[in-house]
């Protein structure tokens, strides 16, 4: 590649500037979370101050945000377990079925992914209220499975499609039945994909807000609902809510590090392969 140095430097500078602006809100929240309110409320904003982790411990321990973390974890992990196990089976079948009906099913799933979620939230709320399931884990888990399922099937299918068909034939010749072809040949081949799908599904559940707002209560409140309530409150708690917000973001940064190589597939190809 013949590329001149000067345009490259300009390009690099422009991209760096954009990235810096883009990351400012995150950095600002982080700085606020380690500032004393005196520094946080100064105009113009201070850059030099004595950092403190006081608010981080205070919000997670004293304000009991750890409870919401546990709620979030219970709900997300149950959702992923149900959604990925059912979704993987369906994805395998859909990756191998040829013809009109399987295409129709895939298209239908894609259409479901586009539903206005609020249309689903209303009946869920009414049903959960009738059954007395508001403020329980099952209502929230079922709702998240419903949102997750189409996406899980599509992403998992994109991994199954990459398995060479000859392997299935060889396994069938060796005497495997339909289930064994799946469990002994296909499943081990897509194990990395299974992990990727599970993590994306986990992210989706962890971030979900609308259903959590409607279906959870004091005992089952998840992190997004807790922080939305808290962050909207009195500005005097600014450092505390900033600490909580930054804390909620940390697992997501870890998630991104873990999935570095698969991000494009999960976000783009998983969706774009349609």
């Amino acid at each position, binding site marked *: 590649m013949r590329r001149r140095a000067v345009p490259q430097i300009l390009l690099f500078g422009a991209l760096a500037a954009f990235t810096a602006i883009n990351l400012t809100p995150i950095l600002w929240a982080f700085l606020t979370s380690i500032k004393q309110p005196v520094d946080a409320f100064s105009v113009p904003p201070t850059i030099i101050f004595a950092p403190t982790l006081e608010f981080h411990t205070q919000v997670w321990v004293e304000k009991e945000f750890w409870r919401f973390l546990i709620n979030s974890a219970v709900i997300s992990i149950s959702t992923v377990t149900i959604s990925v196990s059912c*979704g993987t089976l369906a994805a395998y079948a859909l990756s191998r079925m040829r013809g009109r009906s399987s295409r129709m099913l895939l298209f239908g799933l894609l259409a*479901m992914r586009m539903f206005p979620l*609020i249309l689903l939230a209303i009946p869920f709320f009414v049903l959960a209220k009738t059954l007395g399931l508001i403020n329980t884990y099952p209502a929230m888990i079922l709702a998240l499975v419903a949102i997750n399922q189409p996406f899980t099937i599509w992403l998992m299918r994109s991994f199954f499609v990459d398995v060479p068909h000859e392997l299935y034939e060889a396994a069938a010749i060796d005497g495997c039945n339909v289930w064994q072809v799946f469990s002994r040949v296909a499943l081990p081949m897509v194990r990395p994909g299974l992990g990727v799908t599970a993590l994306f599904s986990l992210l989706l559940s962890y971030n979900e807000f609308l259903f959590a707002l409607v279906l959870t209560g004091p005992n089952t409140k998840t992190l997004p609902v807790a922080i939305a309530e808290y962050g909207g409150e009195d500005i005097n708690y600014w450092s505390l809510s900033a600490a909580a917000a930054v804390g909620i973001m940390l697992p997501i940064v870890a998630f991104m590090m873990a999935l570095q190589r698969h991000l494009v597939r999960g*976000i783009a190809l998983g969706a774009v392969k349609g």
Partner: protein
Amino acid sequence: MAALAAPTLARRRLKTALHGRLWPFLVPSGLVIGCVLLYPLGYALYLSLFRYELGTNTQEFIFLGNYSALLQEARFWESLARTTGIVLSAVGLEFSLGLAIAYGLYRLTYGVRVFNMLLFLPHIVTPVVAALFLRWIFMGRWGLLSAGLLGLGFFPPDFLGNPFWARITVVLADAWQFTPFMILVLYAGLNTVDQSQIEAAQIDGAGIWTLLFHIMLPAIRPLIVFVLAIRIMDAFRFFDQIYVLTSGGPGTATETITMYTYALAFRLLEIGKASALGVLTLIVSASLIALMIAAIYWRERERI
């Protein structure tokens, strides 16, 4: 006889193992989708035909009454127009910015991986948290932007309290979180363009802009239509950020159709009317999807 039957049987078993009976694999997922997705949706459709108010516990069949009431209501049309405006500005901004950055990354020879990671971060931050981050930038008086402007001696507008600026802020917030998605997808797309085609154009003396607009963009046209379709759908139903940033306010300045549905269902507890509004939203977005898909197929056929 046996010698003849055996291979036939084996072959049949082989065929069964390969192609037969895949449908049982669909059962668990089908049950799940039926119970937690299709049944509630059907129930919403059913509810939309009732005057059903949780507050007063009325439940009365009024057929399409909710729909005709909504269609005659100014608040419905206003929120629909507002949503369309916000969605189109946000997606337009995301696409142009995303394309510029993606092409920049494509031309860049050094540090692409790091940029990709850093640029991507806002996209996967919990939307509620992202909205708070942005709230702390745009907030009056102490927000970074307001405080910064004040420090420089300017008097900043009330970004969240003024109807005009609140709409801009909502668009910017959407763009902050979803431009990375555009960058990622478009960058991946640009990298799939046939290298020999690019080299041929370069030999013919094409500059970097000609290259982008006349060679690369036409090559990834289906991808562009698809990514725009996805973004428009998602922006249309998006809720989290606006709820945290402005809750539809000031007044109804940023009340999108989803925010309006939420207010109807969970503040006023008019479940029937809210369901009807949800169904109308579904119809609007479904016709948008249909248009987009028609566009993709039309382009595809044109190319063959």
